[in-house]
């Protein structure tokens, strides 16, 4: 555990640069600003919406802004270039020749990515949720924060794996994968979407959201929604998300060990 402590400590220090801190504040502020703008412009009661429906709309909006945008971007900025960063500054070999150096490096960077993104999400939720009218702010905050944490964990592992498989094009591949699989594929009403993180997070939201049993039944009877949300209980979704996280993390560790990330190029053989 000395290795993990060392990696965490040094990586944490490296996140405290002006650029990284600015990004953290930007990610934190973005959902708060959008909430303020929507609250100022939209008048839900004028269009005949009741309080429970209004709360559902707000929860969906917070879901899109915090676990989807804030967390995904947060872990993307930290986890995707985890290996590429070490390779570019040629520090990889110093760590790769230490006992379990690669393993602890990846685990340490993963934890930093999760802490960095989920802390931004939690602060953002804490600032944005009190801005709206709600009968139960605490429950909404807890729902959004729990999903944010799971989202950060799963996406950080995914981007870390993409970074280990394609270190030179980690950012491009991560964006492409997110757009194609996590956005498009997860909304395709077919079995394949069940293997996406987004499908599980969305299903968890539907399980935890404040919605009447009739409303939930209606939702699930709709042919489209039937396939874009899972009916299983929340514990099943959590197991799925933790399983995907474990799978991606294992994949990234194996890929990093199998690949030859030497700084020796053909020119300095």
């Amino acid at each position, binding site marked *: 555990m*000395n*290795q993990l*402590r*060392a*990696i965490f400590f*040094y990586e944490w*220090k*490296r996140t405290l640069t002006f650029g990284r801190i600015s990004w953290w504040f930007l990610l934190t502020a973005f959902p708060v600003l959008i909430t303020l703008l929507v609250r100022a412009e939209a008048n839900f009661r004028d269009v005949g919406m009741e309080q429970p429906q209004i709360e559902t709309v707000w929860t969906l909006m917070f879901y899109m802004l915090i676990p989807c945008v804030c967390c995904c971007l947060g872990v993307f900025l930290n986890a995707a270039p985890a290996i590429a960063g070490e390779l570019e*500054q*040629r*520090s*990889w*070999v*110093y*760590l*790769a*020749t*230490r*006992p*379990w*150096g*690669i393993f*602890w490096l990846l685990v340490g960077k993963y934890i930093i990515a999760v802490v960095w993104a989920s802390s931004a999400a939690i602060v953002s939720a804490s600032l944005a949720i009190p801005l709206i009218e709600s009968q139960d702010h605490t429950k909404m905050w807890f729902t959004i924060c729990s999903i944010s944490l799971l989202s950060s964990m799963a996406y950080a592992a995914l981007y870390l794996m993409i970074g280990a498989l394609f270190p030179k094009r980690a950012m491009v591949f991560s964006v492409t994968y997110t757009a194609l699989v996590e956005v498009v594929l997860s909304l395709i009403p077919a079995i394949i979407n069940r293997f996406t993180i987004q499908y599980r997070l969305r299903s968890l939201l539907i399980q935890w959201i404040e919605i009447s049993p009739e409303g939930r039944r209606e939702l699930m009877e709709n042919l489209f929604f039937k396939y874009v949300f899972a009916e299983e209980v929340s514990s099943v979704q959590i197991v799925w998300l933790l399983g995907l996280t474990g799978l991606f993390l294992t994949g990234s560790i194996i890929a990093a*060990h199998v690949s*030859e*990330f*030497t*700084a*020796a190029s*053909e*020119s*300095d*053989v």
Partner: protein
Amino acid sequence: MMIEFDHVTRLYGRVLGVNDICLALPPGAYGLLGPNGAGKSTFLHLITGQLKPTRGTVKVLGMNPRNNQQLFRRIGFCPSFEGMYAGISGLNWVVFLLEMQGLRPAQARKCAEECMERVGMTDAMTRPISSYSRGMRQRVKLAQAISHEPELLILDEPLSGLDPIGRSQMTNLLRDWIKSGKSLIIASHVLYEIEALTQSFLLISGGRLLASGTAEEVHELLNNVPMEIHIRANEPRQLAGMILAASLAESAKMGRTDSGDELLVVSTRSTTQLASAIPDWVRDSGIQIYEMKTADDSLQSLFNSLMKIHRGEL
């Protein structure tokens, strides 16, 4: 055996890194000598497990080095490039890597401070690495490699960038390391750097292990290999005739310098005799010699010749 290579070939696509190397080295200190691009870094990356051979097998301390966590406890590696975290101090960098080696923070700090003292960095160790000179960075790189007292120390061009005093200090430090009975492999393209440390050499060029042996054997090899000498004179053809008549050269040919002047290129095994004879000829015949130099003052000419011997061309 400390290191065993069994018909090891490593390719980077179509480019050869090392080519069919076979060797077995018992524990000790060895100099890996070769010109730039000879395959030294590939050799070192193979023994540190950063690369796997395309063909053949590599064993270090009896183990396959690839992802071998047990082996990583027993080796220390100093790469030729820098790559340290520039924002932290030299001391913290060494502490960090010692913690990565598994040491507790307090123990790591103590070891790191001792090690920084050994490499003469105590005064500057708390300054950020970004403020260090090239020589200071070299010392920190060496400190991180020796800080956990490995059995086998692997150094890639560790003296480059050091001033003469630093070079001498590092050489003494490495001599002490060898005297303590620990093993060392040091790669360099400068013969005297290695000669100051060890009498055992591995000569590598074009990815091939061309020769191995002691300093005497390498010097013997140097004496037996024709050396190419470039001479710029006012009467180069007349001088060529005199050299060949005295049987002091295997061959002599005319060439041109970059500026278009005539150039006499002599290939000789009798460099000492030739150097003694030329002043007499100059005095007696009035030939003026403007410039006389070996084709390359590094080891490149030796390696070129060894390569030709290896191919059966000499």
